[in-house]
């Protein structure tokens, strides 16, 4: 046993806070993750650049149309700097992007940042609305399934979730259009009203698209949450304690197990976000919503490289941030993980 008084490091009020912050596991984890995200994001933009340049045709001929003369195309491509070598163009783009400047669209005088700024809210609303629908439906369903495993509700949910996971978004979208817009005109088939114009009108136009995004998620999350709940109910000590205290089964599921299962659900949402973003492209195309995916399809067919790069970068950053946020929340919600991490 060492009996000597441990030497306390000298403390200054200002720097101790800074040191505590720097040694906080959350900050360390986010710092490391954000640093390791940089090569990944660079790879994504580089891959996009190579791919877009491998496409036949370029922005000059795509934008001028088929009636343009070769001379017009040549002068236009000089104006767009398309005559410079690939590496120079990518270097210019990368240098500007590193300082936060995403450049100007080739198709319009608008800056890429302003295009993304005007389109992103639509896509974000779509994703958030879909996630809200998913939660409202799948949490109660999963609780019912876990309360009576192998019961009628459970079996029905299993079949329905299998169907909802297997359905293609374009198929689901068109079937919902047939049901709700053609046979009964409850919701419009296409069109968009912004949230600032009219909240009711906005919900009216966004409900069908959000449903298309939400239905496969409902199937997936219900099954996931049900499995996680059952695992909690069967193997965790605190459930046994609660049962021994005489807490009712309902309360055990909704108060004790559900809280812990939310942690698992959270990670799945973080991981799912990339797929969800991919699906918004199709949904926006079906319902012609002016979101970022719709813009992306336009920009690809126009060979509008800066816009595509900007959108792909936004998608990449969204995925990286979502994964990071998930990891951090994980530590906040489950103290066991936080302590293990800070010790290591």
């Amino acid at each position, binding site marked *: 046993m060492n009996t000597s008084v441990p030497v306390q490091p000298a403390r200054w009020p200002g720097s101790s806070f800074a040191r505590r912050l720097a040694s906080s596991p959350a900050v360390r984890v986010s710092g490391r993750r954000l640093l390791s995200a940089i*090569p*990944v*994001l660079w*790879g*994504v933009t580089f*891959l*996009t650049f190579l*791919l*877009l340049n*491998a*496409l*036949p045709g370029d922005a000059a001929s795509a934008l001028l149309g088929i009636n343009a003369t070769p001379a017009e195309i040549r002068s236009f491509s000089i104006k767009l700097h398309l005559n410079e070598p690939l590496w120079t163009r990518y270097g210019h783009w990368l240098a500007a992007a590193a300082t936060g400047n995403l450049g100007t669209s080739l198709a319009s005088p608008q800056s890429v940042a302003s295009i993304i700024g005007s389109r992103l809210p639509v896509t974000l609303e779509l994703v958030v609305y879909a996630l809200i629908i998913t939660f409202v439906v799948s949490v109660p369903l999963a609780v019912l399934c876990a309360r009576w495993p192998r019961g009628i509700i459970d079996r029905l949910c299993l079949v329905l979730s*299998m*169907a909802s*996971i*297997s*359905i*293609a*978004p*374009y*198929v689901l979208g*068109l*079937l919902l*259009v*047939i049901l709700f817009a*053609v046979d009964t005109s409850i919701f419009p088939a296409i069109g968009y009203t912004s949230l600032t114009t009219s909240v009711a009108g906005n919900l009216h136009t966004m409900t069908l698209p959000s449903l298309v995004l939400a239905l496969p998620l409902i199937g997936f999350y219900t099954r996931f949450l049900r499995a996680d709940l059952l695992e909690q109910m*069967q*193997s965790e*000590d605190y459930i*046994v304690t609660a*049962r*021994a205290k005489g807490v009712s089964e309902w309360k055990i599921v909704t108060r004790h197990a559900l809280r812990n299962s939310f942690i698992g659900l959270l990670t799945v949402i973080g991981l799912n976000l*990339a*797929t969800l*973003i*991919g*699906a918004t*492209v*199709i949904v926006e*195309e079906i319902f012609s919503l002016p979101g970022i995916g719709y813009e*992306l*399809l336009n920009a*690809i*067919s126009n060979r509008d490289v800066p816009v595509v790069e900007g959108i*792909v970068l936004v*998608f*990449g950053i969204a*995925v*990286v941030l979502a994964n990071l946020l998930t990891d951090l929340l994980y530590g906040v919600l489950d103290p066991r993980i936080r302590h293990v991490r800070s010790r290591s």
Partner: protein
Amino acid sequence: MSVPAADLLATVPAQDLAAGEGAASRARGWLRTLEIVVPGSLLAVLLFFCFIWPAIYHIPSPTVGDLLQVNAPLWSPGHILGTDSVGYDIMSRILYGGRVSFEVAAAVQAIGLVVGGLFGMAAAYRGGWTEAVLMRVLDVFIAFPSLVLVLAIADSLGPSETHVIWALSAFSIPAFARVARAATLRLRDQPFVVAARLSGTRAWRIMFQHLVPNMAPQLLTFSLLGASLTIILEGALDFLGYGIPPPTPTWGNMIATGQSFISVFPRLVVVPSIFLLVTSICLNMMGDGLRARWGVR
């Protein structure tokens, strides 16, 4: 601490087992088997009608329309599922379109399995910087919205079945690499692999004779689930106009062309949608069923 908990819990499965000793467990076993047999035989029937039926029975050509018989309803004589707006027979387009779907799915999964599986296994077995580089490359593919990648590749190669296969492989290769890597990491330090290594077995022999048989069930079930996704994605490419263009029939482009007539003839969309959905459900169910049976995660 955990002993009483384990005791309490032990009673639950024990009761379950005692009750399930007789008819109930046999019924559950049957149900398990049915879960695999029913979708499996449905798929077999679909495959038979897509690939063999047109050879032994005369069906109308999928790309020769009869302009006198446009938009025939369901159950018309000679056209069981009716005709579309150009007079093409829908049944025959469904069957030939199914060929495309199954061919693309099989090819994409095979390419992913061989290329991605080998990469993932070799990288994880060797470890070190090979693995680190591979993982970063996989991260790029995962952070990349898959649909964008597939669209760009499909657009740059031009519309054809082979090109769609290449484009979708860009999606299946990293997925298989991840699964194979995880499986290899799990197996690498197992006693039987260590024993093989200690007795001087060559690396390639360990990989192909010890690792591959042990991860085969996992990769196989994964490829069934992946095939369902591939069929959906192939349809998405057709739907967005980057896939296989008409008049070649595919389920995706049938749905896309049917979209313009959705308010007048919803069946032009509904019929191919049902086939797409049933195929994808069957593949998913079989994948899930086999996964449960073989006990792989």
